[in-house]
């Protein structure tokens, strides 16, 4: 316990020193400040706060899971700057550490963790969204290279990224989950065309379409086993899923603050139902945190932690309800509140990325409750 408090206090002090003095007064501007966010990632990497459970050379300080969670929650509660390319440290880095060769780790991990090189996730295709395993992009072995043909879409930040974890079919005859491989694609390779897609909101997590026309990827860029892409994807996303609830939780806290602030602004309304919904959302927020702790507790004791599977679904739905309540509590002033517009739009993405709510419900029903597949 003292260890935890000591580490969290150290992190808190470090964060205070890093942040500009007017960070909280001008959070609305700073949240879009890419230089600040890049600087934060680099500094967090160097100080060992980026991935606290990892060793020093990989941006951590070898903390236990419990301490790491306290640090992440503290970071969340303090609204630490959002990493500018969350897919890199959040999804790709755990995959590279788990599946990468020594050369891949040497070449790729540090620039990724420092934020010098951004990463995109080459997963979705026009015909393969939730049904990711039905992807059609083909990679055919030709000597020392794979020749890749296909099309990826909704590929966040591909236009700003140097690398992409590209999932492609390497065995068309195998069952669909077993014929996919993960290739590390240099987005500067000939034959790669990247088209950004205009977003409905002011989000800086821009989608792209990535067209792959006979692109050569060295065989040495295979990440994980040949035809083992499904495991690489699931394992990487699982890592992300454990982080998503904390991200949701922070944003929920910010939304709750916004409800509280808005609530005092009206004099023609007694606010009864706003209070009721607020209480319910406070329960959701606390349930997320408590479930996160419960699942950690079980994990540390070597027990299964099925309750962790509610975190993504509950966190994303709660986030949407919080911002809808903030809008209601703001009244007609919500119409010209462009920050609020962005929050509401952004929250709608939460039930889609990292596995839609529908997929989450299928997972809960089939894997936890044991109901038959449809």
């Amino acid at each position, binding site marked *: 316990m003292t260890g935890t408090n000591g580490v969290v206090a150290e992190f808190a002090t470090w964060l205070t020193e890093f942040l500009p003095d007017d960070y909280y007064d001008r959070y609305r501007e700073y949240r879009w400040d890419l230089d600040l966010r890049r600087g934060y990632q680099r500094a967090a990497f160097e100080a060992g706060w980026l991935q606290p459970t990892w060793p020093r050379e990989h941006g951590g300080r070898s903390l236990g899971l419990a301490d790491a969670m306290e640090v992440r929650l503290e970071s969340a509660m303090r609204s630490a700057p959002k990493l500018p390319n969350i897919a890199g440290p959040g999804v790709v880095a755990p995959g590279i550490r788990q599946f990468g060769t020594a050369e891949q780790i040497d070449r790729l991990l540090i620039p990724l963790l420092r934020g010098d090189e951004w990463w995109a996730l080459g997963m979705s295709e026009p015909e393969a969204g939730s049904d990711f395993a039905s992807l059609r992009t083909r990679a055919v072995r030709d000597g020392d290279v794979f020749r890749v043909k296909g099309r990826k879409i909704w590929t966040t930040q591909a236009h700003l990224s140097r690398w992409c974890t590209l999932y492609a079919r390497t065995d068309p005859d195998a069952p669909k989950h077993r014929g996919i491989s993960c290739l590390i694609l240099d987005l500067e390779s000939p034959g790669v065309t990247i088209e950004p897609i205009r977003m409905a909101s002011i989000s800086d997590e821009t989608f792209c379409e990535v067209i792959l026309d006979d692109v050569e990827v060295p065989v040495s860029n295979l990440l994980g086993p040949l035809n083992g892409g499904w495991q690489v994807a699931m394992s990487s996303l699982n890592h992300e899923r454990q982080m998503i609830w904390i991200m949701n939780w922070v944003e929920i806290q910010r939304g709750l603050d916004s409800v509280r602030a808005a609530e005092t602004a009206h004099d023609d309304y007694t606010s009864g139902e*706003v209070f009721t919904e607020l209480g319910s959302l*406070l329960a*959701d927020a606390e349930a997320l945190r408590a479930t996160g702790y419960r699942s950690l507790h079980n994990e540390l004791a070597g027990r299964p932690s099925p309750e962790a599977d509610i975190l993504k679904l509950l966190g994303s739905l709660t986030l949407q309800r919080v911002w809808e309540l903030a809008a209601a509590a703001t009244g007609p002033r919500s119409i010209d509140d462009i920050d609020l517009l962005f929050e509401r739009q952004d929250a709608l993405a939460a039930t889609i990325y990292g596995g839609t709510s529908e997929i989450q419900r299928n997972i809960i029903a089939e894997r936890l409750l044991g109901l038959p597949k449809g």
Partner: protein
Amino acid sequence: MDVGLNSSQLALRDSVRDVLRTECPPGVARQAMTDPERWRTVWKTVVDLGWTELAGPAEGDEGSFSRVDLAVVLEECGAAIAPIPLLSSVGLAAGVLRVAGSAVGEVLDTIGGGVVAALAAHPPGCRLPGVPMTLQGGRLRGRAIAVAGLPRADLIVTLAASSDGPVAAVVRVGDGVAVHTAECTDPAQPVADVEIDAEPVVTAPVDVESALATPLLAAAADLVGVADAALARSVEHAKARQQFGKPIGAFQGIKHALADNYVALERARSLTYAAAARLDDPATSPAAGWTAAALAKAAAAEAAVGCARTGVQVHGALGQTWEHDMHLYLRHAWQGAATLGDSRALYHAVGRRVAGGTA
């Protein structure tokens, strides 16, 4: 923050579950609805096994069971819809006395020994629990409604306003205590209104929020158990029942409703375990403890009612029959949901506090 059960609590859970599986299958609740003495045999087992000792002793004393232990046992009794007054006596009535100091130690011991107590905490005309009585010149007076377990109780614990501030008071059922029993939603767990004009056995000053926190937590644990059991029954049915050539659980309409039930259940369970740990922590302020327990109770009632209602839907016409168990879960859930504050009232109270900056 540590949320969850340690290995001895898991062992406690398993042993309670095993006993109830043989001593108290769901059909016992149905029998108790028509046989007013049916609860006694189960109660004797429970008392003999020492489960009532979860009542106390008072806070801070050696050997006091933790509230997590209490929650574990009540959750299992809820899952078994055991028609016994363990929740009302050990969870609600003793829950108040736990924070009332050494003056009530003897009463706690009595409850721990199996004497049945009930908590009168609903002032007429209020959705939230509060202080229904007054204490003046050594006399306890007032009215309370929907007192859980009162028809089976020998003692009543209540909260009273006095010139020295709020007190917890204990009276014996008897002279000066008028018990009005009527039909109720869950006849396996009878309730009654009460009118008191009597001299209390003992009184002790309490903080009202602290006094109500453990009862709220206890009610939450019971309802988490109900939710879990009702969901398990629905899942079982959804796997077995075939329509259109496959189990109905293969259809997303059913599958997703049950997945949502699971989320509601685990949301409530997490809040309940977290609230129990918080109330066991002496550093928790009364307001923070009440808030945690109130949110757990609100969430657990939503989960229990949601799982039981979905259960009726999933079971179709079968779920509307007396012989099927689903109405037993639903009755228990509905009644528990209305006890100590319905979910909306509790959410409202917490939301108002937080918006007003008083929590």
